[in-house]
Every structure is written in C-alpha cells, then in structure tokens.
C-alpha cells in the first residue's frame, strides 16, 4: 500500500508527463534532430549524440560542442566556450528553485531538478508551478522534464540518420527551432516592462558585445548589463 503523499506525488508526476506530451516535446524533438546530424558530421557514434542530449541538456551548448569540433577547434577552447555559453543556467536555476523546494525536497533532489532545467522546462515551470500545491510542484516538474528529455533523446538518435536525407531548407528550419522557440517562450512569459526590456536588451546588446567584448565572454556581459539595466528601469518606475 502506498501512503496518500506517495499517491499524490505519483499523480503529480503523471500530470507533468501529460503536460509535456504536446507542443513542448515536439519543439524539443525538432531542435535536437539537428544535433543528431551534427554528431554524425564529425564521425561520432549515434549514442554519443543521444548521451549529449541527456547529460548536457542544452541545445545551444550541444550545437557549439559538435560545431566547434567540426571546425577543428582545440578541445580545451571548446570546453571554455561551451561553459561560457551555458552561464544562463546559474540565474535560471536560482530563479526556479523557490518553486521546486518543498517538504522532503533536499539538496540531492534539487540537484536532480536543476539538471532538468533548460529553456523549455524553465519557462513552462515558471508558468505552471506557481498555481499548484507546493507538494505537487517538484514531481510535476520531474514528470514534465523527463518526458521532454526522452522525446529529445529519441529525436537526437533519429536525426543522426535522417538529417542527411532532408532538403537543405527543412534542415535549416529544424536548426531554426531553437532561436525561434526561445524568443517566443520568453515573450510569452514577459509580463512587466522590465521583462520586455531584458528581452530587448539581451537581443540588441549581443551584436555590440560580440564586437566590444569579443571572445567567449560577450554573453556574460550581455546578461549582466542587459539584466541590470532592465532591473534599474523597474526600480525607477516604481519610485516614479
């Protein structure tokens, strides 16, 4: 016999899995098909691509990893570039953590939850979790993210074999899914003027930062400068 708490946790997990089964999984599958193709381009086995989806769980980092290896970059340089491209996970995890915490959710479980954080689960989590009872949030999030991840892992393996058979325009459209979906889900989650400023500044500052800061640190500068200006606008408006 399972306790009522276990039953409610299992049903929250299943609710999360159900919420993932539509658009979020399709979007992730479209994004990761291209990664499967990149894995093949550099002569790696199919399972290395699948493993990267499960372990790295960050489309842009995977594209950067396999794309830079294809371009002949040295591995230590690739590691630095991948790491700097993934700095967003620090503020993303910090800002979703309060929604995952609850009774019986220790640091170990939070680390597992943090591993599942990516743009899809972050935007959907921030949208859906606040309206839920605290005890259901963590299992819902894990249910959601594991279904999306399983779909994405499958697509990575399928893309390994499929991408070469696709017309160039369709292959391009699959790789376009990540930037397009990131933009739309950020916009869908934007409510305040500060949210829109952060979005617009991040976008506008990136080309400038590539020129001024350069190297791999440009994204870090974009995040800190753009986010801080957006925050300052929020403070000024509140005082006015």
């Amino acid at each position, binding site marked *: 016999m399972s306790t009522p708490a276990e039953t409610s946790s299992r049903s929250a997990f299943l609710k999360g899995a159900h919420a993932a089964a539509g658009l979020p999984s399709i979007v992730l599958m479209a994004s990761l098909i291209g990664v499967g193709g990149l894995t093949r381009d550099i002569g790696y086995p199919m399972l290395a691509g699948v493993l990267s989806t499960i372990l*790295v769980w960050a489309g842009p980092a995977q594209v950067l990893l396999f794309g830079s290896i294809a371009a002949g970059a040295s591995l230590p340089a690739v590691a630095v570039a991948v790491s700097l491209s993934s700095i967003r996970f620090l503020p993303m995890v*910090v800002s979703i953590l309060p929604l995952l915490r609850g009774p019986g959710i220790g640091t170990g479980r939070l680390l597992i939850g943090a591993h599942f954080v990516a743009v899809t689960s972050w935007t959907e989590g921030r949208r859906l979790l606040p309206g839920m009872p605290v005890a259901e949030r963590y299992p819902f999030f894990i249910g959601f993210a594991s279904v999306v991840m399983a779909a994405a892992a499958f697509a990575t393996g399928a893309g390994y074999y499929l991408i070469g058979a696709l*017309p160039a325009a369709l292959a391009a459209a699959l790789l376009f899914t990540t930037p397009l979906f990131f933009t739309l889900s950020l*916009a869908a989650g934007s409510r305040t003027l500060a949210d829109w400023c*952060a979005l617009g500044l*991040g976008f506008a500052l990136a*080309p400038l930062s590539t020129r001024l800061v350069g190297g791999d640190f440009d994204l870090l500068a974009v995040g800190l400068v753009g986010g801080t200006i957006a925050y300052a606008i929020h403070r000024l408006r509140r005082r006015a």
Partner: protein
Amino acid sequence: MLAALEHATGGLWPYLVVILIGFLPTEIWRFAGVVAGRNLDESSEIMLWVRLVAAALVAGVVAKLLLAPSGALAVIPLWGRAGALLVGFAVFWLRRRSVLTGLVAGEAALIVAGFAFV
C-alpha cells in the same frame, strides 16, 4: 597529450568528450545555481534581478544563434533568418500570444526563404 588520450581510449573517446567538454562545463552552472539559490526567497529583490539577467542571457543566446549559425541554418542569408524570426514574433503577437501559431508561421517563413534562395 590529448592525441595520446584519444588513442588510449579508442571507441570511448566521443563519450568522454561529451562528458568532459559538454556535460561538466554546463552542469557546473546548474550546480552553482542550487548552491547560490538555496536560501533565496522568491519575492526578494535580488531574485527579480537574477530573473532579468537570465532573460537577457537567453535573448543573447538567440541573437548569437541567428548572427553566427552553424550547420544547415548558415545557408539561409541573415535577412532570411532575422525576417523569419520577425514573422514568427508578429504572428505570435497578433494571435494573442500563441506560441504554437508563432512557431508555425516563423518556421514556414524560414522554409520559404530557404527554397527561394538556396
């Protein structure tokens, strides 16, 4: 040294690269997020700043993916990539923030640009 390591590990090398060059450099930030955010309150001011920095970072990643695309996306000219993003965003906005409709419209615009100019 790397060449020797690659030789020594043989068929396992790609998996090691995925773990050492892909997984660890990315996961370190998620780990740091759990450590840094363990005691932060959802309604605190610093949390709002953190969220805005995250949003700016994601937008920056999008801009970089559009400006310096890799693989098959690079064959679409810049105006095609930027135009398709604008089409997707405009449709998303006009259809009352429907992510699905915006996504379909943006993808369609990119495919049209692809067939027209590749």
